[in-house]
């Protein structure tokens, strides 16, 4: 039985034994937020949520691309990260691909695709958009050699993923 985690227009099934967190960081400059409340036309920093799911405990403090988690991964561990980008990215070539992948293969993973190189690990990065929102799907497996046997866990999570147009900007 899986639990469903929802927030900021993202919904996902959490497999047994997995942690999941949808996090939206506070804007770096709180003064700009106060200014925007006074005048909504003021252009200020907008933060977007990111989703982390992993078959190991997720700490509160994490970087969007898994810093704080990947250092603690062993060969059995998997991290799935879905990072939303700001709306301006929608019309760029990087995010032109439509739809977040719902199925990866062992070939999707490459050691060079890691944002931070950790020996033994491999990553997969897909920049795309869905429901009018630009995303990067970043997946890290603890062992490149065993990616084939771990990818089914990732695909199970991806198939349960649902994105709505109501995002988490703010």
């Amino acid at each position, binding site marked *: 039985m899986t*639990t469903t*985690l*929802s*927030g900021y227009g993202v919904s996902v099934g*959490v497999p*047994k*034994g*997995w*942690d*999941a*967190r*949808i*996090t*939206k960081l*506070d804007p770096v400059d709180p003064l700009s937020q106060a200014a925007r409340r006074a005048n909504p036309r003021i252009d200020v920093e907008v933060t977007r*949520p990111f989703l982390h799911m992993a078959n190991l*405990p*997720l*700490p*509160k403090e994490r970087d969007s691309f898994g810093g704080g988690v990947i250092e603690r991964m062993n060969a059995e561990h998997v991290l799935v990260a879905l990072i939303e980008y700001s709306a301006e990215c929608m019309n760029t070539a990087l995010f032109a691909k439509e739809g977040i992948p719902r199925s990866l293969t062992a070939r999707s993973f490459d050691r060079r695709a890691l944002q931070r190189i950790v020996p033994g690990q491999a990553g997969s990065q897909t920049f795309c958009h869905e429901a009018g929102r630009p995303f990067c799907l970043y997946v890290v497996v603890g062992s490149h050699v065993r990616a084939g046997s771990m990818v089914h866990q990732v695909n199970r999570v991806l198939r349960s993923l649902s994105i709505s147009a109501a995002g988490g900007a703010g």
Partner: protein
Amino acid sequence: MVLLCPNYKGSGGTFDAVTMITILLLTLCIVLLVIAAIFVTALTASSGDLEQRLAMLEDQGATTTPLTLSPRSGAVATGVGGAAGRLAHDLLGATIAGDPVALAVTDVDHHTLLAFLSSGCSSCGRFWARLAEGDLPDLGDDTRLVVLTKDAADESMTALAPLIGDLDVVLSTKAWVDYEVPGTPFFIFVDGRDGVVRGEGTALGWDEVRNLVALGRGDASIVTGVSTASMKPASDAERESIVDRVLMDAGIFPGDPSLYPGGEPPDLAKPV
């Protein structure tokens, strides 16, 4: 009788009298033996019946005790104020910022200590203070500490925010319902591999929490300076557990003035 005394008529009178007396004595002995046998049989049967009745009384005593010690189904009292053996639940809630969180407690290779705290309970104050100072209990590398409060709708966010600070706290009324938490502070130790509660109870300080964890793990080594030999025997811990439950069922939690001779709880500012 004729067969037994073939010489009754033809033999001398003295011999016949002796024979008769012997026969009478023998008969008397046999009668006495029979009576004794009957008496012993009756006594044995009575003793068996008595044992049976005692056993029945004991059974009745166990099922009709007037104390409702634990409302938790299938719970077995163990550890420091703990009920164990029931199934654990994974956690679903949110951070104080409203970010959704799902934490695995079962089907994992680590243990989890769930600390149920609230903003309104005075006994939670020392835990909040110690947590805010980063003074976490040394529970061992394989045990994860998760601090839980009720949802924003059931908690005072104004009071909670300064207590939480940068702490990783999960707001989840669902967890309180799932784990049937009777009040705060309350601690539950879960074995992630089996997915069952290994111990639970209330506490006034980290030392007691560490005891709970140690007993739940069956490992005294994490209780600093306390060897297995000097720990409470299981019967003492069980008695303590029963007393804790009775008190909590009556609405009396740690720090309640009625628990102290002068009606004054110990100084919460002092480190435990």
